[in-house]
Each structure stands twice: as structure tokens, then as C-alpha cells.
């Protein structure tokens, strides 16, 4: 869970805070205040949900339906977290050029979409796990409690 808090909240927060003001080749670039606030809001909101879900996923018994359900919810939240980068404006990070009337835009949409593709596969395997845990519930319980 601490890992999820680190990767979904702390690392993005520090990264966006660090790039809020950049200096490249003597030219100062600044992330717009509104853009920064939007990004940080969505990153922290979904980061907290994912971290909370991770607690229930990892505290549930192995191969249990509860674990499968929370793992699936967690992955869907991960997708929404990634997608939040898109609708918070973080996939097209815009920096103002302080010295001139201008801006720099970095578009990460393709990268986010590839990650979404990978998460789609992860969702597929989590659904498969959930179905498997449900169908083989008795066998799993017998194995867990050491009964044949």
C-alpha cells in the first residue's frame, strides 16, 4: 500500500512540483497555475482511491473472491487514474514561456493510451481470476483449510 501511495501520489506530486518552473537554455518555462492545480487534484484523488483499494486487495485471503473483486476495482481505478492524466490536462502539459508570449506543450497521450492497452490486458486477467476463484471456490477452500 505504501508503494501505491509512493507511485500514485508522492512521485507524480514531486515531479509536477519540480517541473512547475523549469529553465531550458536560459529560457524560463512555467506550468500554468490552473493546469498545475487540476493535475494535482486528480492525481491525489485517484491516488488515494487506488491506495485504499490496494489495502483491501492485499489484506484479503489469497485466491478469495474478495481479493479478486478488489483487485479488479483497483485495476479499473488505475485506468481512471491514467485517464485522469488526460482529462486533468496532464497528457498535454503546457508551459508558459516567461520571457516571451509563448508556450511549450508536451503531449503524452500516445504513451497514456499504450499504458491503457496494458491495463486492458490486466483487467482481462483479473476478470479471469475472479471467474476462476468463483468456479473453483470449494476446491480453493478445501486446499486453504487442508481438507480433501
Amino acid at each position, binding site marked *: 500500500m505504501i508503494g501505491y501511495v509512493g507511485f500514485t501520489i508522492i512521485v507524480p506530486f514531486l515531479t509536477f512540483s519540480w517541473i512547475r518552473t523549469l529553465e*531550458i*537554455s*536560459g*529560457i524560463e518555462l512555467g506550468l500554468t497555475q490552473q493546469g498545475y492545480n487540476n493535475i494535482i487534484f486528480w492525481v491525489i484523488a485517484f491516488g488515494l482511491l487506488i491506495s485504499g483499494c490496494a489495502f483491501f486487495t492485499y489484506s484479503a485471503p489469497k485466491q478469495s473472491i474478495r481479493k479478486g473483486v478488489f483487485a479488479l476495482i483497483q485495476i479499473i481505478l488505475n485506468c481512471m487514474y491514467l485517464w485522469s492524466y488526460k482529462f486533468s490536462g496532464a497528457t498535454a502539459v503546457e508551459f508558459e*514561456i516567461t520571457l*516571451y*508570449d*509563448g*508556450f*511549450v*506543450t*508536451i*503531449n*503524452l497521450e*500516445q*504513451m497514456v493510451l*499504450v*499504458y491503457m492497452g*496494458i491495463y486492458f*490486458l*490486466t483487467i*482481462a*486477467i483479473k476478470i*479471469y*481470476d475472479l471467474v*476462476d476463484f468463483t468456479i*473453483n471456490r470449494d*476446491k480453493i477452500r478445501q486446499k486453504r483449510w487442508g481438507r480433501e
Partner: protein
Amino acid sequence: MRAARVFRWTVRIFILFLTGTMTAVSVLGGLSAVQILSNPANIQIADDPVVFQFNSTQPEKTNVSVPFYLNNDGYYSLNGLNIGINITLVYNSTSEEAFIFRKNQTFPDIPAGSFLDSNFEALNGDGFIPGNFPESFDDPNIELWFNISVSARYSLDLLSFSVNINNLNLWSDTLY
């Protein structure tokens, strides 16, 4: 259960491979950006003179040439480099505006570890709109404003960036 376990592990290893690959691409892309941008020598307007020759009576003798140097010090090829320049003529007395030049130029891809020493060129009236030319470019009543855009793709084309500078007056603004 055994077949299910084999299937699950096969898919998991595949997903792990994809996630690892993407993470490596992201990290190397970030490192590349730091390597390229941390050294000012990697992006330069070259020492050759920047040419802006305007001729209102003979538009075919109007030329723009901006030499530049780009060193791709990163891990991936820089693709689709495109530079665009628009020049707007502004009459100070009436605040009337007219485009007199508009051109986009695409440059070859710059593979990792190599450089591009090239020119943004519009020679012999190329890209100019002579119909909007003033009677004389020496008229103190006019100003020329430049809009400059640079765009390219990086990290296996997974990210793209663009730089836009608007309303730059080359005669009064200092460009780094």
C-alpha cells in the same frame, strides 16, 4: 487448475514484459530530455548569419534563412521535426494587420547520437504573400511580428512536443 495456472502465468509474464518495456521507454525518454536540454550547445541558432531580406518591389528577391544546429544526445530518434514561421505586418497608425509570410518546413529525422545542421529557408519569394507587401519595408510606420513554432516526436513517437512563440518582434526582442 493446472492449465488455468499456466494460462494465468503466461498472461502475467506477458503483461509484466509490456509494463517493464514501457517503464524503460518512459525512463529513458526522461533521461534523454535531461541530457539534451541540460547542455545549451545541443540546441543552437548557428553562427552563420540569420537572413531576413525583404524587397517590396521585387518579391522574388525576398529571402528568409535561419540556420540552426540540433544535437540529439538522447536514446531515441527525434522524428517529424517541423519548423513554421509566420510574419505579420502591422501598420502602427491604423493597427491593420496582414500576413506577408507563412511557411512550414519539415526536416529529416535525427537518429540517436547524431545531429542536424540545417537551415529554415524560404528563398526567392517562397512562402511570401506579395499582395500584402507594403510600399516600402523601410517605412517607420510598420512593424514585423513573427510567430515561430517548432514541433517533433520522441520516445518511439509516444510523446510529441511543440514550442510556440507568438508576436516576436525581432528588431526589439532579444532571442536567446
